[in-house]
């Protein structure tokens, strides 16, 4: 446990340390890309790079949102099934209730925010440990998705253009999808919120030392609720994108996605103990996960070994991070 040094004086050091760490994570990503490019001529092609980015989009957005929660020292296990529920709600708004496209999308994002708000309320007002509070929400969201949809996928007959939110090609002559552009926009917005706003500052402060933050006059409960709600908005957006990609709201699934997102956050150097983390790190983490999965498939590594490889990468990433912190 490091001592809670005054934020201002240590910020220069932590900046230097963070950039070093991001440099290392970035170097690992480049190394993995180079290895796969050597192993297969089909890896480093425009089409395949777009495939990797598409695969990283939904998990990446979930990971970005949950980075804030993890920096406060919390965890959110409901992001995967919550995302599925938001997808189903998109279907309810657009298909059952006949809302216009913009209202349905906005409604689903706000619905995600409500899920996040309930998580935040349970964690900070009721005092339920984040792991348990969001575990409960994970199961509730999974069940509600099935109840609301009647266990059937919901399609979007009134909005045939719904799928273009994720799939529309935005660069003429290429297949660069709008969804990936949304992902990039979300990255920029998250980076600004985390580094330039009071939300980000308090997230770090709560994660480093909650008691000290409280004593210095910050309403920790309120800010925790805000941060969980923020993560929920990301969950809502991911739900819209995922439903858009499949042109249908699939009520099953989502379990396990929270672990993929958390793995991306951790590979990116955000500490599960809280107080430390970055958006760039999470993006690199999400890309490492997506590149690994795609690359191992391209070179036809059997499924079971793919899991082993990804597991090893997570362990190595966290171990290197520990080494760095010990030496720092």
């Amino acid at each position: 446990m490091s001592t809670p040094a005054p934020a201002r004086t240590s910020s220069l050091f932590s900046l230097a340390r963070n950039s070093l760490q991001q440099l290392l994570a970035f170097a690992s990503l480049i190394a993995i890309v180079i290895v796969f490019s050597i192993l297969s001529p089909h890896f480093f092609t425009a089409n395949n790079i777009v495939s990797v980015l598409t695969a990283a989009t939904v998990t990446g957005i979930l990971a970005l949102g949950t980075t804030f929660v993890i920096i406060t020292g919390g965890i959110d296990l409901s992001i995967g099934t919550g995302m599925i529920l938001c997808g189903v709600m998109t279907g309810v708004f657009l298909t059952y209730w006949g809302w216009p496209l913009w209202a349905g999308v906005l409604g689903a994002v706000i619905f995600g925010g409500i899920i996040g708000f309930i998580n935040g309320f349970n964690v900070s007002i009721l005092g339920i440990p984040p792991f348990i509070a969001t575990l409960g929400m994970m199961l509730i969201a999974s069940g509600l998705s099935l109840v609301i949809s009647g266990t059937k996928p919901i399609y979007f007959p009134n909005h045939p253009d719904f799928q273009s939110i994720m799939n529309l090609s935005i660069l003429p002559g290429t297949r660069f999808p709008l969804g990936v552009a949304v992902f990039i926009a979300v990255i920029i917005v998250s980076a600004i919120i985390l580094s330039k706003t009071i939300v980000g500052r308090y997230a770090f402060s709560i994660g480093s030392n909650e008691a000290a933050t409280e004593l210095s006059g910050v309403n920790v409960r309120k800010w925790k609720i805000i941060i969980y709600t923020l993560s929920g908005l990301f969950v809502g957006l991911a739900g819209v994108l995922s439903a858009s990609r499949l042109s249908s709201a699939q009520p099953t699934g989502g379990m396990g996605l929270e672990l993929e997102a958390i793995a991306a956050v951790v590979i990116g150097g955000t500490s599960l103990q809280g107080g430390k983390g970055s958006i760039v790190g999470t993006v690199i983490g999400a890309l490492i996960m997506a590149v690994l999965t795609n690359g191992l498939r391209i070179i036809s590594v059997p499924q079971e070994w793919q899991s082993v490889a990804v597991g090893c990468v997570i362990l190595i990433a966290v171990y290197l991070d520990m080494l760095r912190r010990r030496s720092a």
Partner: protein
Amino acid sequence: MKKRLFGAAIAMAATAALITGCAGGATPEAGGGDGEKPYIAIISKGFQHQFWQAVRAGAEQAAEEFDVEITFEGPDTEADVDQQIQMLQTALDKNPAAIGFAALDSQAAGPLLQQASDSGIPVVAFDSGVDSDIPVTTASTDNLAAAAEAAKHMVEAIGEEGKIAVVAHDQTSLTGQQRRDGFVEYIEENAPNVEIVDVQYGGGDQAKSADLAKAIISANPDLKGIYGTNEGSAIGVVQAVKELGLSPDALAVVGFDSGKAQLDAIRDGLMLGAITQNPVGIGYETVKAAVEAINGETLPATIDTGFYWYDSTNIDDPTIAAVLYE
């Protein structure tokens, strides 16, 4: 402090309401054993997918016809062996007249099946076989033959030569293995110029299957066809074709099972065709066999519930339309 207590009280009240609400809705009519109608407990591999809902519809149809009472339940996912075993245990405790059982893991269910046998409760296996002599019969699709039929159509579609790949749903269940092996064996025996370059597994998840199909297509630019072994896998492959903007003539997609997205893909020409099982028939035959077993009739070792190849030419035929579900 007061605030927190109040909050906790609300939370507990809500939880209690939730639990009683759930229990009230989920508990089947107890004491089925001593009612007038014979009670048959049916434990499937799941309940979420449209496939299982269709099996359930067939079972309920037979229950009405033969005047028996049934319950139909299944675990949350097809990987929840533990949950399924608990359901089987609970079903046995209710002392049913017969049990219909689609094992996720027949070894794990062994002791309970033995218990059923000792208590004189006949067990009818359905969907995939149970690796045991206890079930009186098995009502299922011949998945090996069905997958071979898919392979036959694939070979014809690509002009009997070229590279193809398989996107399977899993490698541990019997259906997953048979739908892969039936396809692969047909190609090896009958199509010397067709090469299967890759077999990958997407867990039946559409987005995952789409991502891995894209990787396979990238790795093999001259690929001529992909076979998806269940609904989620097949739709994932179609999604990959859409996202890459490939012409349907360049890549033949062959699927398995049914569902609206798959029917649309076939109608739109994105998918060549698919194999459909007869899930309503599986449910119907299971209950029918259970009734016959209760009446002491002798049953064949297996009941083949059949399968059909469907494509744009026969998708609206009454026989085919009857076994497809949206």
